[in-house]
């Protein structure tokens, strides 16, 4: 019997636990040139904001040891153009569609989520609460339990399908933030977004990013992401976890699932090898076969802690 890769999150079934991470697969069009998107459990779009955003001036990315920094600046077409030009393509794709939503004011999140509620093709919303919160003086929504709860609750009110809270790792206690998001009604967690980092060119003495700092992603951060997934899972939060951070092969996926993730997202690895999700699905099946498991769900949370 060939092992089953199907997973359920918040009542929705996914063909497999492998999703592409926000900001790393555009709006799906280009990736569809590499492999059929039906191979994915879900596609998570670039963060969508109320108004179009051009993003930061280049350079926007830098290489780091086993990772990268990015400060794209939430460049995106804005909700209007997204609905008009990107949703029609997504509607033709045989995969789950999760739209990542960002904003610097709570009202922006609400308006974007309201618009998305009308797009039936959008299976879920993923709230990027790692953006600086203009209302509260620049501190990230996701760094403050109260703001986290408030923003999840507000979006839940206007979006009728499941809402994922994407948590920032740049906090003292991710468990506390997860609990707040659960309190606000989050149906799932995405853990983690990128770590704050920077890099300097010692010849020009300039930061390698015009934004002066950016988000660290890629294999370098995997141990941190894994520990955070593990911590939230152990804390007994009810919503399922989507593990993110440095995943590059099936082994990484198994690690995340053993620590409690019900699904995963692939970000930076798509740049290194865009066909990573396809390879992972194949290798994951082989792993399940080899370890005599019928379903990938049997891995969830099964790490044997000391």
């Amino acid at each position, binding site marked *: 019997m060939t092992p089953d890769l199907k997973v359920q999150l918040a009542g929705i079934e996914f063909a497999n636990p492998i999703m592409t991470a926000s900001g790393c697969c555009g709006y799906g069009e280009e990736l569809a040139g590499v492999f059929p998107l039906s191979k994915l459990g879900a596609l998570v779009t670039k963060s969508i904001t109320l108004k179009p955003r051009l993003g930061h001036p280049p350079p926007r990315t830098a290489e780091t040891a086993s990772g990268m920094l990015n400060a794209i600046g939430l*460049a995106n077409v804005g909700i209007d153009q997204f609905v008009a030009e990107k949703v029609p393509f997504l509607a033709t794709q045989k995969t789950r569609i999760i739209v990542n939503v960002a904003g610097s004011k709570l009202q922006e999140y609400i308006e974007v989520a309201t618009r998305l509620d009308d797009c039936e093709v959008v299976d879920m919303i993923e709230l990027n609460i790692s953006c600086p919160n203009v209302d509260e003086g620049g501190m990230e929504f996701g760094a403050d339990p109260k703001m986290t709860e408030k923003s999840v609750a507000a979006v839940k009110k206007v979006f009728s399908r499941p809402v994922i809270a994407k948590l920032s790792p740049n906090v003292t206690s991710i468990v506390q933030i997860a609990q707040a998001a659960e309190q606000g009604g989050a149906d799932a967690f995405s853990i983690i977004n990128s770590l704050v980092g920077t890099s300097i060119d010692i010849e020009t003495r300039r930061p390698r990013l015009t934004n002066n700092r950016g988000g660290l992603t890629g294999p370098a951060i995997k141990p941190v992401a894994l520990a955070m997934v593990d911590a939230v899972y152990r804390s007994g939060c009810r919503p399922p976890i989507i593990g993110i951070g440095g995943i590059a092969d099936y082994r990484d996926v198994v690690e995340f699932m053993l620590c409690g993730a019900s699904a995963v997202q692939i970000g930076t690895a798509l740049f290194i090898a865009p066909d990573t999700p396809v390879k992972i699905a194949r290798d994951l099946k082989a792993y399940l076969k080899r370890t005599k498991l019928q379903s990938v769900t049997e891995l969830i949370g099964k790490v044997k802690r000391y």
Partner: protein
Amino acid sequence: MSKIACQDTLITKKRHLSQDYFSLTFSPVSRANRCVPGQFIHLLLPSTDVTFRRAFSVASVSEDGNELEIIFRVVGRGTTLLAGLAKGDRVNILVPLGNRFTIPRKNERVLLIGGGIGFPPMMFLASRLLAKGHPADKIEFFYGGRSKDDILERTRIKKLGVRFHPVTEDGSFGEKGLVTQPVERVISEATGEKMRMYACGPEPMLKAVEALGVKYGIPGEISVEAPMPCGFGVCLGCVLPLKAGGYTRVCTDGPVYPFGEVVL
């Protein structure tokens, strides 16, 4: 949604051209036959010493469409690793990427301008134009470098039969000076003929070529560079500002742009 092949391929030929310059031929390469001048490949080095792939213009494609050649210069970690690979080694490439040079009409005089390691796409363009029947004496191949060692594949370029204008800053080969000198001379000597320019090379050269285009009212295209995390349009890391405002993704909207479109 253009089709991109993410594929393992083998290095089937390695040539050390001079000092820091190498030519690598890969085979088999599916979709190599689809590659057109201006396009590039994105190469994954078999080491985590570098995170990103590295972009290289297609320098040639074999007639059977199975082999693909790049020519590169060692400038940093990635290209050092690449230079260390040998015939028989496996690499993973994405191909074909990027847009393409506009094909000129047969009656146009074509000015191909390569600066330093910008010459490979010019060479590919020259041979494709010849294959499409563009008259060889209507193709001017300008190739600038610091000194003799930077002017590569001289025999190969001469064999094409195009009008070859090598230029070196130190005068050790060809004309002494900057490549834009003979370009401007050829332009001013031309009489009433339609012309079109294509350039790839360092930024100052591209700016100078664009300036000549404006000065003499000659249309043309430049191929630009940017660091490229993904190479196929999804990361928004390779952007350059557009004169009209906003940004362009060099990997998918470029690397080829008409004169005056991007802010260099």
